[in-house]
């Protein structure tokens, strides 16, 4: 049952992307992209990585 706790990691993408005051800013820029854009782009990748991690950790429990 301990591995089930990994599922809680899925909360992170919600907190990171559903609070616009965290990222609705111009700077710091990266490759000409304002922070608003590269932060959200980064979170697409981070959320996918988190889902994959949770998948690996919870899969072992069930099989």
């Amino acid at each position: 049952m301990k591995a089930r706790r990994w599922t809680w990691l899925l909360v992170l993408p919600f907190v990171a992307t559903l609070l616009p005051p965290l990222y609705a800013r111009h700077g710091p820029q990266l490759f000409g992209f304002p922070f608003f854009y590269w932060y959200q782009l980064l979170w697409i990748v981070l959320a996918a990585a988190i889902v994959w991690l949770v998948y690996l950790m919870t899969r072992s429990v069930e099989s």
Partner: protein
Amino acid sequence: MNSASVILVVLVLAVTALGFLAARWGGANLRSFDEWALGGRRFGTIVTWFLLGGDLYTAYTFIAVPALVYGAGAIAFFAVPYTTIAYPLVFLIMARFWKVAKRRGYATTADFVHDRFGSRPLELAVAFTGVLATMPYIALQLIGMQAVLERSGIAPTHGSAIAMLVAAFILLAAYTYTSGLRAPALIAFVKDTLIYVTVIVAIVVIPSALGGWGHVFEAAQRVLASRPKPSAIIIAPAQYLPYATLAFGSALALFIYPHSVTSVLSAKSADVIRRNCALLPLYSILLMFLALLGYCALAAGIVVNNNNAAIPALFVRFFPNWFAGVAFAAVVIGALVPAAIMAIGAANLFASNILQTFRSRAERPPIETTTARTIALLVLAGALCIAILIRPEFAIDFQLLGGAWILQIFPSVILALYTRWFHPTALLAGWACGMAAATWMQVSTTYSNVFPLHIGNTTMSAYVAFYALLVNVAVTVALTAILDLLKTGRGTDFTAAEDYA
């Protein structure tokens, strides 16, 4: 005929052939309803990746999201957090739904609702909402197609664009009829490849021609700020709540649309769905860059009467003629794939839930595949009529309203996966109040999807669907408490705890 038109026609005919050949894929017996409607629930990780990608990221998305960026600036980027949080939700919820659906043989959300609550009215409400939300969605795919046909030079007049639309649709209807879900599954490989190639070339070629991304953002900011109704490339504090609720509400609605459910149920295991939740975000990166093309159109000084023409105009400006043909083919084929899946999803609801007796699922006769096939044809014909007869703005308003409507089945379908605490009569009343609230808010703001709620001196603007869902849940909870106090009887739950494990 220019080279763009030739390439467009050749690619569309090629996928039509694929659509018919799909009937032979995997030696299926297409007279069986499950084989026609859900590909026999046998698709693995890769097929599902292309199918769900081809299904969720529609041609309309690819035209409308950059068009909204072009027209309204940063607020349009809510599509990015929307598709970021949708996958953790699908990971948790749809894997569970897949299990119970596989165990009990469901083809639709309404099948589950009927089994879970033993309530025919609730089943009908869920099924009708699905069909109602899907029709304008199919129509919008056609409107996206039409925007491209008129811009590509292949259809010089409005009349010829309509004629081509009808021709493409007859072909689509024919292979959907014969091959079922296998047709869009196979064509999705072509569609997604063309879309990736187009977007990768676009983001390599266009920003560098415009002096780099830094310059694109600066130029876009200047144009947006100088408009009569100014906007910006960063959302303002007043837009925080609309931005977050649009993302959250859209993510909740995304996977209860009949076409998403159809694709999810065609997977061969719950793990196929879970794995895809980590792999599908590649399409979200694509969506982000596509949206940024809206800024490229602003920076390139493209001026169009209709925002939907901004991206086709950008392609015509920066691509050689033959590659513009590839890009246009990507959009047209990108419309055919979801249109086919949506027609099948709506047909499944009609055949499994609407055209049924009041008997329980176990006592119902098996579904005639011919019935489902015929309904898919009628659904496509209906959507074609909407696209041709109604002004495009109405179809867009109707689709926005559909997004708010579909979210109203969330408590009956998704919350019910976890609890049976809600009373079916209360769910039905909550649904009705949510539908009415969504419609009223949308109409009273002349079809804005953001509703300004005045509480005392403050105004809180948020996504219509989100507010309507709050109304829905409040009514459902209150009425459940009252009905339970009155000891009002409930229907039978035909599912068992182990069906969900």
